[in-house]
């Protein structure tokens, strides 16, 4: 169990693709940290640099405080689960799990005892002599976990291990992975492009984009206090309103949207802003500055609107009403998504807004085509730089 540090790490591939661009990151001892981001943003490359399969052009990699930048993979003591799993097809399940132990010179009997123990831990006792191709997808996954952890590595690395599985097995294995990780207490770096997976598994999430880290924080911080428009959009669903600052009082900011509605929102608490220079928590949010307001669908409140007042302009709204005038919308579609009711709404200018309610929480007597007003609590709306 060790800490992992990436210090100003940069990796450019032949051909000029800058896969990782000056990333600094600390994974704390025993922590489950997820690298989250769209495909091609450099997650795999970062992970492979920790494992030693890629050499950074600049910067250093530290494991347990020791500089391992030039240490080859077979001397790094990491346990990696590959995206393809990479189970050896010509070996039995047991031999797969034994492989790392044998490489470390553990005696045959001791290695076998340990391997069987690991297989029991992932509930695969009795499958020792099968070949990987004789197992189901979920079982193969668990063999890969057992094989990586059998050698008691100091770091556990996983590259999108669940990408190829269907949703149900994926859920089960996520729970199992988290339980396993906590039982062993191992420092873990997990890579995924699936924000939902990242939210449910991680102690902390590092959101990546174009080879850089956009924001690092707990799932809650990332969700409630996104540092950038990109993070707000990538992690969870959100509604974004572009506009200009009209007035600012402390954390509270009044913004005039491009459609001309005035809304109120707050600056982020800055909890998760460690890494990002794009953060709008900084002091220079001042009248006239272009910003974006992010509002989560569950923060959207709908009120019925007087049909007659609709007129040609948003006359039913008071632009000077302290931001409480809201935004007039038309209901386009109502969807029932599990325990949520999802409203798809359109502003007069044609921007889509999505609002969700818990089923049974409160029902609006409003059908398709109905007129409504969208409001939200400024505390639940974030001001971000464009």
């Amino acid at each position: 169990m060790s800490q992992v540090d990436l210090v100003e790490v940069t990796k450019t591939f032949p051909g000029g693709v800058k896969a990782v661009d000056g990333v600094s990151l600390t994974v704390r001892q025993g922590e489950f940290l997820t690298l989250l981001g769209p495909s091609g943003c450099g997650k795999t490359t970062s992970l492979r640099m920790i494992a030693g399969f890629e050499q950074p052009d600049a910067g250093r990699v530290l494991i347990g405080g020791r500089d391992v930048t030039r240490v080859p993979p077979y001397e790094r003591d990491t346990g990696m689960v590959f995206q393809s799993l990479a189970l050896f097809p010509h070996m039995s399940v047991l031999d797969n799990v034994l492989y790392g132990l044998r490489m470390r010179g553990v005696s045959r009997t001791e290695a076998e005892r340990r391997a069987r123990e690991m297989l029991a831990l992932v509930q695969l006792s009795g499958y020792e002599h099968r070949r990987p191709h004789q197992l189901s997808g979920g079982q193969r996954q668990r063999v890969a976990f057992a094989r990586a952890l059998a050698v008691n590595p100091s770091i556990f690395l996983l590259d999108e291990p669940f990408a190829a599985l269907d949703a149900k097995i994926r859920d089960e294995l996520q729970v199992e992975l988290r339980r396993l990780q906590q039982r062993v207490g191992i420092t873990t770096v997990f890579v995924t492009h699936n924000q939902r997976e990242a939210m449910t598994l991680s102690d902390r999430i590092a959101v990546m984009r174009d080879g850089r880290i956009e924001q690092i924080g707990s799932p809650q911080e990332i969700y409630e206090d996104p540092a950038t428009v990109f993070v707000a959009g990538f992690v969870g669903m959100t509604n974004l309103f572009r506009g200009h600052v009209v007035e600012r009082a402390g954390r509270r900011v009044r913004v005039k949207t491009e459609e001309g509605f005035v809304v109120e929102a707050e600056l982020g608490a800055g909890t998760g802003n460690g890494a990002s220079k794009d953060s709008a928590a900084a002091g220079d949010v001042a009248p006239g500055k272009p910003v974006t307001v992010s509002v989560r669908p569950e923060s959207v409140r709908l009120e019925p609107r007087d049909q007659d007042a609709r007129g040609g302009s948003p006359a039913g709204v008071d632009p000077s009403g302290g931001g409480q005038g809201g935004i007039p919308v038309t209901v386009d579609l109502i969807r029932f998504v599990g325990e949520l009711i999802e409203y798809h709404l359109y502003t007069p200018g044609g921007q889509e807004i999505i609002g969700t309610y818990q089923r049974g929480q409160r029902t609006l007597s409003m059908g398709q085509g109905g007129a409504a007003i969208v409001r939200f609590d400024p505390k639940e709306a974030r001001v971000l730089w464009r």
Partner: protein
Amino acid sequence: MANAGPRPAPSRPGNGEDMGAGIGPVLERPSRRRWPDPSLALVGTTFWVVLAFIVVPLGVLAAVSVHPGRFMTFPPQGFSLRWYQTLLTSSQWLEAIRNSLVVALGSAVLATSIALVLALVLDRYPVRFGEYMRRLGMMPLFLPPVIMGVAFVAFFYEIGFSGRIENLIIAHGIFNAPFPLLLISSGLSKVNRELEESAMNLGARPATVLRTVTLPLIRADVFAGVLFAFLLSLNEYIVAFLVSGFTVVTLPIEIFSSLRYSFSPVIAAASVLFIAGTGFLVWLADRLAGGLWD
């Protein structure tokens, strides 16, 4: 929960670590329907005629080899294995068979060892010099064997080392190297790189990775390479004839020179053994390489 707002839909990466779109199964419905079309009947007839053209001559050889008389007669005069007996008791024929096997085995090992080292090194370190070597190694495929043979003659004369069985082994080893080279390279390209990385991640040094992961995974391709090189050497005539300079006689050379003097059915018997052996090796190589043609 999906995302709304200006966020691009999460598209899967295309950087090679994801499954490619599967190529759908191509043609698995042998259409047995017969359209009432004369051109199709013609095609069907042609098929069977050509198939007969391919098979019948070899069948005739088999018939001649078990025919007791020196010449085939109609109707045949019975069945006899006397020509096989003559073949397998003649020291001349046995010597030819022995030479053929020695040359085939030696050259197959040589060809495969060249191919294996070249393919393995290039798979991991694609240096330019190595790429030139790969192209050089593939060139015999495009050169007429006569020309290769004359080149070897000139070479071995010049270094004053001609007419020995080692020359044949070397000549066939080089001449047949493209086949194991192709087979092993394609085998290596099918080995998922992550398997080797995974072994390294578990603490295996590069040499150990090679021994415990890479080589076991391409074993079938290596064997298929050896078999093919063996098969080709066994069947090769002109390079062997030129390089041997009348001193080393292989089976095809013996069959050929016997033809000049006689039409003895022993030749047919030798040919049938040849056909059987070749057929078996082709079948074995095909099995090992996992269906080369279908």
